């Protein structure tokens, strides 16, 4: 870098410009810096970044220096209103503690690594670095939907017997009862044999009219059903007419009454 030699290494490179200080100068678009800082996955990630940036070995962290840089960073994040996870502050406290302990003279009998205040931190950094690298490498593995694609071979030519669910008549009624229970205005007595046969006849008549231009009124009755059948058919015709499903036409006075399906385009009947 062509900056003054005394200057500490840049905190960040934004658009190729080394960034050394808290953003008092307006060179750096704060948004860009924010994006950059938000990239860190946590305090360990930030620490690793600071160490790697100076080509330092994890096991020889210059704690004092790194602590200062780390604190500068989280101040910067605070200044930019980046939501700072509590973990960052915990780490700052830990670093400060290590730093202070490093300043104290070591007891001569404490040769153990256990007593080196840096040991735990270093172990965590190493572990995290390993995982971070593994995650990177895993991301490079060829994977489905990106480098690899399943073959899609159609099976519609196969005769596959689909087993369809069974239902029982009772279930149907139970379902209907549940529906009725939910609907206040409908009450049980409406579901009588009588009403049902009218409903059925309505369906039969509509089916009869399907594909026909129109039918003569008498054609909708079946003589051999007798009086009861005639009444049912008649009620069905009236109901269909009321629901505007059929038209009843009499072209001129005293002419034969004809009935036709209300839908003019018979052809549509199959597609809805």
């Amino acid at each position, binding site marked *: 870098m062509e900056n003054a030699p005394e200057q500490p290494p840049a905190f960040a490179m934004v658009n190729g410009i080394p960034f050394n200080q808290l953003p008092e100068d307006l060179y750096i678009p704060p948004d860009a810096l924010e994006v950059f800082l938000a990239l860190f996955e946590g305090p360990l990630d930030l620490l690793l970044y600071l160490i790697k940036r100076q080509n330092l070995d994890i096991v020889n962290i210059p704690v004092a220096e790194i602590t200062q840089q780390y604190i500068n960073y989280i101040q910067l994040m605070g200044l930019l209103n980046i939501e700072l996870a509590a973990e960052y502050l915990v780490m700052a406290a830990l670093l400060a503690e290590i730093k202070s302990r490093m300043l104290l003279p070591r007891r001569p009998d404490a040769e153990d690594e256990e007593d080196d205040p840096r040991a735990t931190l270093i172990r965590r950094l190493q572990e995290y670095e390993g995982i971070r690298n593994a995650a990177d490498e895993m991301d490079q593995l060829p994977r489905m939907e990106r480098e690899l694609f399943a073959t*899609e071979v159609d099976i519609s030519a196969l005769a596959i017997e689909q087993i369809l669910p069974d239902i029982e008549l009772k279930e149907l*009624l139970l*379902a209907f*009862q549940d529906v009725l229970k*939910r609907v206040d205005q409908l009450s049980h007595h409406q579901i009588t044999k009588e009403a*049902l046969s009218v*409903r059925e006849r309505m369906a039969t008549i509509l089916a009869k009219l399907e594909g026909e231009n129109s039918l003569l009124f008498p054609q909708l009755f079946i003589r051999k059903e007798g009086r009861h059948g005639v009444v049912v058919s008649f009620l069905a015709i009236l109901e269909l007419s009321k629901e505007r499903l059929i038209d009843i036409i009499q072209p001129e006075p005293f002419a034969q009454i004809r009935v036709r399906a209300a839908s003019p385009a018979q052809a549509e009947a199959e597609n809805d």
Partner: protein
Amino acid sequence: MTVNVDSTVIVQPEYLMETKRIVEAILFAAKQPMTCKQIQQTFPELEQPGLQDVQQAIAAITEDYQSRPIELKQVASGYRFQVRSELSRWVSRLFEEKPPKYSRALLETLAIIAYRQPVTRGDIEDIRGVGVSSSIVQTLLEREWIKVIGHKEVPGKPALLGTTKQFLDYFNITTLNELPTLQRLDLSLDGTPTSAGKE
């Protein structure tokens, strides 16, 4: 392409081989049938082969798979690989599952159609108080339990649904009159531990 067998073996230029290879890969990866045009346009813009090249590749691939248990087949919307039908017997067990159960919504829809026919989808929604998914209606149509028996003369001309002869056959009854009524249900369910019954 292998067809004109007039002794001269035409050595294919390499770029043609490549095209064939890519076309084959595309056909295998595609989730629906592909037309020549669609295959052509799957290539990067500056590398698109002519339609004729695609056509030739398809012919060559079809030939290559002549002896295999899958075939490249032309259907209405393009070409696709499919398992040959003569293998049904062996492959079909892959797809045999336990019969699923119909949903509450489907049962209710069918019940409403049976007891209230002819009804439109709107009617069913009014009665149930919730929307009726088209997949339910579709399932019932495919099962041939219901059919469209007309159209209502209102804006949109909604289809009127009713039950079919197959529906009656399935439940082993001859007319809708034989559908159980609620009164009868109340009697027959007396004492049986179902959710229905008395209020």
